[in-house]
């Protein structure tokens, strides 16, 4: 029987039920949407984490006589392995151009098969091609040996009687080839500059046997650490079979590694290059979850408060109804049972609606890639994660209903019957948080946490090597307190302000809305609790949407600036090594869309002291027009603060200016500007002489040049290529005798479409003319290595934006419709006393205007503050710390307009409801 009564209780007032269900569905929906989004994103984490890894696994032979050529086919039979390429590695003692007597120091030879170049995207041939009967030489070796395609070179190996000669068939770029140098021992990774690639067949015919013999009896002339012969299998696994979760993927990869070793017991030791990326990915998963939940949780809390708010709006009449039941003889146990069962009905209904809403929200807002991972029919759909997230969201709905709908009613059972039946306004004590000034306490706690963090050096990435970023939970303590404190403070201020402004509000609305406005103003002031609660919910929702838009725009802008820093400008054009360039080559690159071009020369073999360093030569006038040079890159080298930082090896440099540093370089022909890192290392200050040894390609000798330090920088365009020493180009070319540019930077109007067009035009222009590499900011943005920053923040932001608009508009609708519903009797009495429909509508509009205007104003201000806080806290995800907020003006305006339209529609719909008010029926309401 209780079930039937409870069901009737739910059905009795469909508007009340629907309003509560809707509020609950919004809360559960957003929560579910965020959980599903996190699940879907995590499913991509493995792919993202291992994307930069170009060589999955290397199995090193434990002895030189292992036949990797035959082992390859066995390895390929292991499930999960796509291909296994046999590779022989051996260090040669010296190499010389045929006909020259003087050889150069040792280097490394790799013997590969033709299919290797298709299997692994490691080697980038910049000239010629791979001929199994020839040699592919590294660019560094081509420069040092002055080699061209067609030249013949002679190799000498320790323990091999005769030198071997091969023609140079091509030149290869080794920028992505670091994995080739990983040793069989963890951590062993010595990169060699002079590298040669030959065919496996040729190697087997000419070198395998002698090197195996030499390995059995190592010659005394062998250099320490040199490799006599290291047979290897380079293994590519089937990445599509890896689970989306990096933790599980790491286990599977480890299992594959053991499978390989198991098939060749004692013969092969496999080194897995994926584990490091997956471990970093695991950390990124946790950071992503923390980040998304942090960004999404306030929205969920707001929606939950909206649901509670919707329940409280009906609390008055529900208490009177239940009080009536008690007067008619229902026991507290019976009423408790009724309310509990009806609450369960509401919870189930609202949570189910919420789950559906969450799925719809994610599908609409997330990118195609994320949304498709929600397809239950797709292979690999993670039912366990889906069930887990759905259960969590469902449980949240149950808890919310318990707190919002059941608990207040249950507590009311303790009150006297007559008090519950009283029709008039209840006077309640101020809530505990207001009396205890919890808003002030929370804000103070936020400030204290921020101060403590700053004293400890501020927010720093705490990730392990390879991990893009680690966001520890403490980073969110300050904003969590700030958010709680702000919420309560807004509630206090709005409530206090409205409650004290009875006469002013009455006067303002009296002027705006005539006679009924006076009454409306008093009503708003004396119902400050309800009005301030509605205002706070909507204002905070708006602020959340604003702050997220600001953060996303800043993030997108900083991504672009990061990419400009990596590329150097909008486009970097790198012709192949040793290609001839006419003097006007730079002007040939000034195609439509290009605003300016600057050529940069580079010496990767320069020596500073005894260490090799890369030195760049720039043409200051064209460089400052073309390259990306924010002042934040430079420091004031003469400032005592900078001198102290250099001396003490801290990072507290005095801010400098790009134009000042470049002016100094331009004004000093032999000037050099240096990175702060190198300045600290070599103890160089501005004004000091700096001796460099530049490699002259014509004489093949080093030339010692005296330069003068004229400026310091923290970052320099293209410094991911280790540009720590920058000279004037004219000075550098005069010393090196080499006038060709290593690469060119091109500046456009910055529009992505223009950048892409320039890149593709240049690529097709030089396709059959010379080998070139073209890198644009768009390439970098699309293929950036950081898996956390490449996560779909855009999808989350769209979800939050939809939510902001929904809650802002519908939050007002819930308040207004609830007001119409719950004050039917009051409106009926007004009509009975002679108020017309216009009076009632103006009454409603007054409340809507108050909530709308206040929430928009507060939402905007708080949104900017929260946005600044988010950017400050999450600035660690950017390579270059952001200098300020970027505001998407049009999008913000658009959101404001949509919210205004939503609020207006809500007000109009609520006002229309008043037209259907039947006075006689309304006066019969409890």
């Amino acid at each position, binding site marked *: 029987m209780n079930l039937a009564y409870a069901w009737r209780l739910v059905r009795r007032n469909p508007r009340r039920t629907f309003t509560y269900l809707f509020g609950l569905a919004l809360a559960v929906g957003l929560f579910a949407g965020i959980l599903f989004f996190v699940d879907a994103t995590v499913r991509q984490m493995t792919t993202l984490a291992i994307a930069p890894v170009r060589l999955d696994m290397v199995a090193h032979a434990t002895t030189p006589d292992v036949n990797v050529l035959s082992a390859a086919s066995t390895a390929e039979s292991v499930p999960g392995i796509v291909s296994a390429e046999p590779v022989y590695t051996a260090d040669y003692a010296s190499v010389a151009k045929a006909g020259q007597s003087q050889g150069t120091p040792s280097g490394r030879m790799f013997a590969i098969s033709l299919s290797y170049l298709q299997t692994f995207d490691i080697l980038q041939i910049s000239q010629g091609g791979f001929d199994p009967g020839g040699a592919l030489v590294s660019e560094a070796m081509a420069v040092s040996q002055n080699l061209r395609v067609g030249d013949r070179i002679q190799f000498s190996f320790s323990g091999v009687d005769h030198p071997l000669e091969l023609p140079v068939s091509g030149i290869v770029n080794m920028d992505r080839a670091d994995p080739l140098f990983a040793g069989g021992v963890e951590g062993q990774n010595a990169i060699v500059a002079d590298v040669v690639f030959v065919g496996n067949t040729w190697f087997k015919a000419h070198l395998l046997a002698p090197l195996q013999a030499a390995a059995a009896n190592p010659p005394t002339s062998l250099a320490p650490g040199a490799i006599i012969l290291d047979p290897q299998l380079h293994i590519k696994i089937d990445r599509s079979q890896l689970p989306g979760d990096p933790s599980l993927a790491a286990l599977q990869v480890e299992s594959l590694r053991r499978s390989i070793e198991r098939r060749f017991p004692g013969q092969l030791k496999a080194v897995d290059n994926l584990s490091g990326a997956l471990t970093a990915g695991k950390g990124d998963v946790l950071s992503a979850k923390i980040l998304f939940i942090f960004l999404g949780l306030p929205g969920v809390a707001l929606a939950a408060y909206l649901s509670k708010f919707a329940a409280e709006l009906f609390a008055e009449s529900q208490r009177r109804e239940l009080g009536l039941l008690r007067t008619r003889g229902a026991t507290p146990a019976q009423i408790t049972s009724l309310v509990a069962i009806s609450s369960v009905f509401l919870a189930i209904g609202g949570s189910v609606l919420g789950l559906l809403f969450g799925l719809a929200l994610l599908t609409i807002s997330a990118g195609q890639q994320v949304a498709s991972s929600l397809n239950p029919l797709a292979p690999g759909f993670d039912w366990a994660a889906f069930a887990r997230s759905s259960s969590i969201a469902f449980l949240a709905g149950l808890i919310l209903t318990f707190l919002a709908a059941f608990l207040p009613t249950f507590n009311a059972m303790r009150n006297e019957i007559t008090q519950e039946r009283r029709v008039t306004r*209840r006077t309640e004590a101020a809530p505990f948080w207001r009396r205890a000034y919890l808003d002030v306490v929370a804000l103070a706690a936020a400030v204290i946490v921020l101060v403590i963090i700053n004293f400890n050096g501020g927010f720093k990435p705490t990730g392990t090597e390879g991990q893009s970023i680690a966001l520890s939970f403490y980073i969110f303590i300050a904003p969590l307190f700030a958010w709680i404190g702000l919420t309560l403070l807004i509630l206090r201020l709005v409530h206090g302000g409205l409650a004290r402004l009875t006469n002013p509000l009455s006067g303002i609305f009296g002027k705006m809305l005539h*006679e009924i406005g006076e009454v409306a103003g008093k009503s708003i002031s*004396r119902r400050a609790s309800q009005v301030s609660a509605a205002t706070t919910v909507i204002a905070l929702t708006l602020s959340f949407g604003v702050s997220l838009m600001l953060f996303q725009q800043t993030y997108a802008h900083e991504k672009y600036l990061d990419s400009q820093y990596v590329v150097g400008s909008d486009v970097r054009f790198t012709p192949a090594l040793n290609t001839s360039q006419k003097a006007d080559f730079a002007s040939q690159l000034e195609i439509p869309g290009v605003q300016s071009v600057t050529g940069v020369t580079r010496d990767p073999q320069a020596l500073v002291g005894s260490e090799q360093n890369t030195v760049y030569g720039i043409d200051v006038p064209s460089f400052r027009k073309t390259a990306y040079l924010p002042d934040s890159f430079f420091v004031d080298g003469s400032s005592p603060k900078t001198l102290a930082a250099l001396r003490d090896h801290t990072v507290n440099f005095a801010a400098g200016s790009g134009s000042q540093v470049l002016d100094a370089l331009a004004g000093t022909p032999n000037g050099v500007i240096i990175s702060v890192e190198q300045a600290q290392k070599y103890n160089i200050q501005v004004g000091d002489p700096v001796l460099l040894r530049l490699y002259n390609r014509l004489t093949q000798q080093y030339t010692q040049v005296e330069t003068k330090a004229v400026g310091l920088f923290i970052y320099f365009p293209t410094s991911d290529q280790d540009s720590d020493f920058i000279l004037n180009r004219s000075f550098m070319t005069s010393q090196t005798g080499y006038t060709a540019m290593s690469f060119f930077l091109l500046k456009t109007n910055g529009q992505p479409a223009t950048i892409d067009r320039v890149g593709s035009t240049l690529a097709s222009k030089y396709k059959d003319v010379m080998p070139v590499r073209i890198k644009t900011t768009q390439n970098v943005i699309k293929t950036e290595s950081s898996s956390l920053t490449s996560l779909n923040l855009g999808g989350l932001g769209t979800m939050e934006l939809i939510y902001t608009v929904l809650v802002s508009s519908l939050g007002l609708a819930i308040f207004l419709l609830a007001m119409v519903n719950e004050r039917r009797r009051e409106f009926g009495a007004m009509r009975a006393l002679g108020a017309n429909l216009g009076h009632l509508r103006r009454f409603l509009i007054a409340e809507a205007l108050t909530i709308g205007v206040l929430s928009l104003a507060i939402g905007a201000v708080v949104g900017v503050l929260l946005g600044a806080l988010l950017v400050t806290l999450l600035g660690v995800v950017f390579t270059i710390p952001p200098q300020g907020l970027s505001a998407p003006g049009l999008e913000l305006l658009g959101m404001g307009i949509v919210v205004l339209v939503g609020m207006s529609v809500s007000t109009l719909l609520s006002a229309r409801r008043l037209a259907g008010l039947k006075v006689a029926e309304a006066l019969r309401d409890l």
Partner: protein
Amino acid sequence: MPDFEQDPEVVLQTVNLTREYRVGRQSVTALEDVEITIRQGEFVAIMGPSGCGKSTLINLIGGLDSPTSGRVLLKGQDLSQLSEEELAALRRENMGFVFQRHDLFPVLTARENVEFPLLLSGGPADHRKAKAENLLSMVGLTDKADHLPEELSAGQQQRVGIARALANASSILLADEPTGNLDSLTAEEVVSSLIDLAQKRKLTLLMVTHDPDVAAHADRILQLKDGRLLSDDGRSS
């Protein structure tokens, strides 16, 4: 039956007044063919068992509800010919309502509640305030003018309701069980106030009541049963 044209003292008439409600698939007749004529200044009590149609009758007379058939004539004007807005204006200018549960606006003080009907009619604020205070003094609540309804007793709340009803009642005062929620002593006081004020202002008073002691003060008693007018016991005052 005399009408307004024949007898200007006739302020209110109902002609074959019928009201039916749809409850699910069934039709419930709350009033059937009720015909009454009321003259200016009369105190008419409407009595009958629960559910006999008393509140329905008074709602129809006040224009708060529409009849299924029949007419309500107020000073010869057929209320069914008026729009909702015209009815609201009519109530604003002619009628006062005293509700069973006073229905004071909880966020307005006693004075502001009484001012409400005056505010709807327009007029300067000081005039409204003075009139409201005058009405409150008539019901003996001058010292409670700035109190909110929750700060008043049930009897005081109902007296404020009476003062509010008098604010715009120029010809008719409708009271639907004004003492239903009061104890007998308070009820006696409230009814006395109501009748006294109605007489002083020469208002026509229609009052729904269960209480025979209250009805004893009336000039006429209309007895309703099952939606029909059982008797119209006219008495001379």
